[in-house]
């Protein structure tokens, strides 16, 4: 992805029917963002298949523990708060980024990273606790699906953390250059997307699991 055509990218079409006329202007940043959006949509399909799998086998307890016995909703509420707060703090970083303020951008990005790290830590603790209780992924179909779905989300958050650290280092090296802004916009979309997936997880897996 090159940046040389970005000067033409400002004339975004305002209505649907203009899309074809303006199509040739979609180069540079706009094309990257659309491409990244389509990646997010395909990632949503991966999660859809995992949710579907979980939904199908979610009562396959094999005589093992049921959700109500093993899910600690206080821990899940804490984790949900961490992830939602990190989405909000990332939103705080974006206006600073657009204005080119390096210090506040890095500060809010670092806060986001710390909240994300807290989320992953609590999730590791929960997984370790479950496995120690004998409710590991090999215990039942329900637990296999649970660890796959929640673990895949946790892996995404971990990748997001690596990305945040990379951005913190690169902002230090390059400042808020054009490619850096584009990367940060992609990262913010990725991070908000993970929070959206978590809405599905805490509703469908944890809350619904406890009351069913």
């Amino acid at each position, binding site marked *: 992805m090159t940046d040389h055509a*970005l*000067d033409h*990218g*400002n004339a*975004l*079409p*305002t*209505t*649907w029917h*203009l*899309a074809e006329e303006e*199509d040739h202007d*979609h180069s540079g*940043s*706009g094309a990257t*963002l*659309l491409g990244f*959006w*389509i990646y997010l*949509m395909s990632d*949503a*399909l991966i999660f*859809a*298949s995992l*949710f*579907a*799998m979980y*939904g*199908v*086998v979610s009562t*396959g307890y094999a005589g093992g523990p049921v959700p109500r016995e093993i899910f600690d*909703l206080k821990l899940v*509420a804490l984790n*949900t*708060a961490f992830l*939602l707060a990190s*989405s*909000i703090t990332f*939103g705080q970083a*974006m*206006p600073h980024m*657009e*204005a*080119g303020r390096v210090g506040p951008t890095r500060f809010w990005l670092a806060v986001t990273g710390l909240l994300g790290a807290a989320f992953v830590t609590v999730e590791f603790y929960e997984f370790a606790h479950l496995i120690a209780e004998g409710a590991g992924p090999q215990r039942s*179909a329900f637990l296999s699906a649970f660890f796959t779905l929640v673990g895949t989300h946790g892996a995404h958050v971990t990748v997001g953390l690596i990305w945040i650290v990379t951005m913190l280092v690169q902002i230090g090296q390059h400042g808020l250059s054009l490619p850096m*802004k584009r990367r940060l*916009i992609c990262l*913010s*979309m990725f991070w908000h997307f993970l*929070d*959206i997936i978590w*809405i*599905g997880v*805490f*509703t*469908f897996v944890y*809350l*619904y699991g406890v*009351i*069913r």
Partner: protein
Amino acid sequence: MSRASIEGDTALHSHGDTHDHGSRKGYRIGTILSILLTIVPFWLVMSGALHDATTTAALIFAMAMIQIVVHVVCFLHLDTRSEGGWSLLAFLFTTVIVVLTIGGSIWVMYHLNTNMMPMPGMDGPAR
């Protein structure tokens, strides 16, 4: 997302913050709504306020749907103008596939399980 891209571009072109105000307002509304839509389902389930699992389930799923829409509109800034409508089109297509995948799988497998002939020595498939 296009709001983000537009703002990115306007910032790059020194056009100032013409889109900034509306975006910040939407972001604040989104923040308040998302906090509410997270706290209420947790409170409903943890306090057992309704004493009725079916109603509680319906409410928490409804609130999850609303919260997902709030996040997509307020945080991902999806609207009809995003990338000339292509973002919205991709999103709607994805939504259809997601609903078909999750809804279809659960529906089909539920009926498969309940209509299965009981076999000696097992109380149901995959249990």
